[in-house]
């Protein structure tokens, strides 16, 4: 069991679960809407990165796919946060 928890994929999974529960806490606690929403999207971006790096094992190289993953993640995050912030409330 301890060997299981020593694996990077297990530590990544735990971080992903904690990040998801943090999102749920933000939703449930009525945090200031605009700030909380941006935080939620940034947490999602962090989670996507963990999936790419640890579950899909791009953490230690594998170019050009690592670059594709980083660019995709950055572009999608920028798109959602940017469009959200410029949309009239």
């Amino acid at each position, binding site marked *: 069991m301890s060997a299981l928890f020593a694996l990077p994929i297990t530590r990544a*999974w735990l971080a992903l679960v904690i990040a998801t529960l943090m999102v749920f806490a933000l939703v449930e606690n009525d945090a200031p809407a605009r700030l909380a929403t941006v935080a939620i999207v940034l947490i999602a971006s962090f989670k996507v990165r963990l999936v790419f790096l640890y579950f899909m094992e791009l953490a230690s190289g594998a170019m050009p796919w690592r670059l594709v993953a980083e660019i995709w993640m950055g572009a*999608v995050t920028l798109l959602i946060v940017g469009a959200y912030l410029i949309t009239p409330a």
Partner: protein
Amino acid sequence: MRPPEATADARAEDTHSLTGQRKLVGDEGVWFFISADISMFALFFLLFMVERYKAAALFEQSRRLLDPALGVLNTLILLSSSWLVALAVHSARAGQREAVRRYLTLGMLVGAGFAVTKIYEYWHKISSGITLLTNDFFMFYFALTGLHFLHFAVGMGVLAVCLAKSRSDAMDEHFVVWIESSGCYWHMVDLLWIVLFPMLYLLHAA
């Protein structure tokens, strides 16, 4: 072909080149597919955000009809299923057939929970009179989650093939590449949901 017992050590050597850079996990063709697929979804995200900009009030009103608790539950289900499939890949490299089968079975069982939750959610919406034709938000909601669900169903099929192969095939390099490629596809289903969930359920109008 290497004997199964030699697979773990050989695989560990194979995943690192002389330059120290790790080789790609899975088949390169699968990575081309994944790149094309996530790019297509990025385009859909752009279309959604443009339409949301044009009709923010309608999108906010409609978004409030979704249950974020179900979205969180589905996220936890897919993350856990992905982790179990990653453990199956790890076990395949070590030539541990029983562990591969155990983790794949668990990964599919946990993953099936996503289908149960999603079907419940669709049934609830449709029985309340909300469909693809209700408005632009729900057109995007049903189209995007439906397309994602199609990817999920294909992923479950791919995992089932892996499970069948793990019964009879040798735990060799060929099988490892097969399960790595299948695992990468399954993780893509997971990461697309990680973006879809906040975009559809949680973009709160201030």
